[in-house]
């Protein structure tokens, strides 16, 4: 093995730089996290699945339900169906958010990450921006694709909705927002719990099982508990007309959900900053 040392003299200066480089800042941390995010296969597969499930299932369900919607036999509003697939696609958003945090702990990568960037707040912020911006863009694009394809079938039966109809545009961008929020929620919990399977079970269980069971709780308080469960509060913004009439208003619900996400992120940050890597 031949050695090719890159420098023959070393100046022992604490602020010494490799010749020709500048001091790194937050944009570099962000760029590094962006590279990490897109250089593992799980990211591609999860975003691809989000699109296939989100747009594909919306199209399929609209095609199958169009006749019943037109005849009124379905007893539901066509507006509820235009982002139907996103209900399932949210699983992939949760997976993606979880992996952003837990894969680092599962592999020991976290030590490399924090050795490179000891400012842990910056690491968390960079991860949050990468996962939420990706999910917002992919979620919104998926919702639009599902709308255009699904609405084509509804239009044929005369029950299609225009983009300018109430709630439609909001539900498409809202789907992206909800996906981004779910990803952040899972990432924050991932940073706290650090085990992929545990975090996935917890978030999926909370959104799909606990959130639904909560509607069975008795009394006004039970009703309110159900309303503010993350999945129930946050998902309303992503549907033009919700299946569930008991949900909070779209933006009120999303504000509650955003508050829950923010709270979990703050807790994650506090723990992450103190804990041994």
């Amino acid at each position, binding site marked *: 093995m031949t050695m090719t040392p890159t420098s023959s003299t070393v100046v022992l200066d604490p602020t010494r730089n490799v010749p020709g480089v500048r001091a*790194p800042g937050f944009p570099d941390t962000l760029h*590094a996290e962006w590279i990490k995010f897109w250089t593992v296969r799980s990211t591609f597969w999860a975003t691809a699945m989000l699109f296939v499930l989100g747009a594909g299932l919306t199209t399929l369900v609209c095609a199958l339900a169009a006749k019943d919607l037109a005849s009124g036999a379905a007893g539901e509003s066509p507006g509820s169906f235009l982002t139907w697939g996103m209900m399932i696609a949210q699983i992939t958003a949760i997976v993606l958010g979880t992996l952003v945090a837990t894969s680092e702990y599962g592999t020991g990568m976290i*030590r490399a990450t924090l050795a490179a960037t000891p400012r842990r707040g910056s690491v968390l912020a960079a991860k949050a921006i990468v996962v939420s911006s990706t999910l917002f863009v992919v979620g919104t694009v998926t919702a639009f694709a599902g709308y255009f394809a699904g609405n084509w079938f509804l239009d044929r039966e005369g029950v299609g909705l225009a983009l300018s109809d109430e709630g439609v545009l909001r539900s498409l961008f809202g789907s992206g927002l909800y996906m981004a929020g779910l990803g952040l929620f899972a990432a924050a919990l991932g940073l706290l719990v650090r085990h992929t399977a545990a975090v996935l079970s917890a978030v999926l269980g909370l959104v799909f099982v606990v959130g639904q069971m909560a509607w069975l709780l008795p009394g006004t308080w039970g009703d309110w508990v159900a309303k503010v469960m993350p999945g129930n509060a946050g998902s309303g913004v992503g549907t033009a007309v919700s299946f569930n009439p008991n949900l909070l208003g779209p933006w009120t619900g999303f504000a509650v959900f955003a508050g829950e996400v923010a709270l979990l992120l703050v807790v994650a940050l506090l723990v992450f900053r103190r804990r041994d890597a």
Partner: protein
Amino acid sequence: MIAAHGLTKIYGQKTAVDGITFTVEPGRVTGFLGPNGAGKSTTMRMILGLDRPSAGSVTVNGHRYADSPAPLREVGALLEARALHPGRSARDHLRWLAVSNAIPASRVDEVLDLVGLEAVAGQRVGKFSLGMGQRLGIAVALLGDPPVVVLDEPVNGLDPEGIRWVRTLARQLAAEGRTVFVSSHLMSEMALTADHLIVVGRGKVLADCSMTEFIADHAASFVRVRSPQRGEVADLLRRWGLDVAVHDEELRVQGLDAAAIGELVGKNGLLLHELTLVRSSLEDAFMTLTADSVEYSAHDMATTAGTAR
């Protein structure tokens, strides 16, 4: 330079590092030697700010690691070779690290070349052998061309050629004036690599001296002499100014070689039953030094069986 002062790490009930103080000087290879569980890796993690000390402090070039504006360009570390995602390629792993510390992208190919991984740079690291993973870890350590290099058990999983390469590399980095801190649980490896030695056991510093001093202090050899006239032989040798210690039936003599001792005893008409040069190896010296501090020692079969009964 790395300076630890009263550095302590307590995990629950267990004190992993117990108030250790040491300095690692530039321009030489400092070996960090101790049995498994002695607190070496914990100390190294605290140097890099990954673990928070329970008490005391450790600084690199006079400040905390976390306060470095660009840590990878100041301290290069090989912590665990597997501190990476198996699904990412070697080049991508180095690429994000370079970006995070504003290191030019050209440096990635330089270090891949340096460690001999250029041909497999595009492969996912999950497929790497232990040795290749270790080489990638060393590439990571050298990425920022850092004045301080910290290597935790760098020869683990390397073949003999790789071990020699790491040894040469460490010596070369030190010769360039860098601070080189290398941990190992193998004394034999350290003897060939390190100029200075810090020996730890159960979280405490047991020795902090140059390799030459360590050898002189701990690896002394002696001549074992057995004789039916033990007392007379001992007196004779002492009269000749030799250092004689009595251990049960034998004499341990220092200061003259076996042949000369034999001649001396013979000329004086005394009988000898045994005359053996006993050379204590560095490994033995290290074992003796750390004997009380070994965390997970294998128990004698007989003893274990005895307690089980």
